């Protein structure tokens, strides 16, 4: 690695996890490898181009992560970083077979169900804030901006919940 680095700002929406994985794989093909996973983006470091499978998984919410990370390590996956409940792993692609971390539709369904739960809760939390925001919207710009932000976030989480539901249904019907 010659050590040239760049920081990439990137917002990942939970329902676009496969798209994010493909983007990271393309970066690796172009010789840019994830050095650090940040809150909203990555630090990439330049090196030889590589055929690399990147995979995102929703890890254990609480408790001991040693067993979880140990299984991935044993299966040859490198733990690249973590962002909240998301974990990023990578493994070189050798030969024709692309390695996978989920090999059964059921485990992907559980993953999207967990995301659906989080998204629905966040949506409810935001929706419940709106009446209070309305009653306080006394004409000051800051109050209105807060209200619009709450509505925007509620909408985003509602959209996210629908996307997760669709993902679960698609997996149920067509498998992985």
């Amino acid at each position, binding site marked *: 690695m010659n050590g040239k680095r760049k920081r990439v700002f990137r917002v990942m929406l939970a329902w676009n996890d496969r798209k994010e994985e493909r983007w990271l794989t393309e970066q690796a093909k172009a010789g840019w490898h994830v050095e650090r996973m940040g809150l909203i983006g990555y630090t990439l470091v330049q090196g030889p181009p590589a055929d690399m499978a990147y995979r995102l998984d929703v890890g254990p919410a609480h408790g001991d992560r040693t*067993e979880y990370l140990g299984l991935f390590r044993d299966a040859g996956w490198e733990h690249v970083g973590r962002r909240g409940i998301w974990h990023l792993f990578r493994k070189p692609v050798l030969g024709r077979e692309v390695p*996978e*971390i989920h090999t059964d539709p059921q485990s992907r369904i559980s993953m999207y169900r967990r995301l659906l739960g989080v998204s629905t809760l966040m949506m409810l939390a935001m929706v419940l804030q709106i009446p209070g925001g309305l009653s306080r919207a006394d004409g000051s710009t800051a109050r209105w901006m807060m209200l619009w932000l709450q509505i925007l976030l509620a909408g985003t989480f509602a959209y996210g919940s629908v996307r997760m539901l669709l993902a679960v249904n698609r997996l149920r019907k067509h498998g992985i």
Partner: protein
Amino acid sequence: MANLDGRAGGFLPLTEPTYLVLAALAEPRHGYGIMQYVETLSDGRVKLGPGTLYGALNNLLRQKLIRRSGETGTNSERRKVYALTPLGERVLLLEGERLATLSKVAIQISRRLGEVR
């Protein structure tokens, strides 16, 4: 025993990865051991990804079909070992009987179709 059979029957049919994980735990193994053994058992046809295995182990623990049975390895590479509970063993055997019946049917059908051709 009848009671155990009744409870065990409620878990059937198992998904293929779940059945193979239980089958691998006919002897206590750690997670990595399960991955390797399942691949061997299925002639390399079934590969268990670590995400799928982690979910399957957690489900089986919650359903009390398997239990934790100590640890192996040194500090840096410590691995938890899993074993079947009596209920898990019943589920494995009942599902085995069900699959054996099905494969008998499958063999007969394949032979018959073979004759027609």
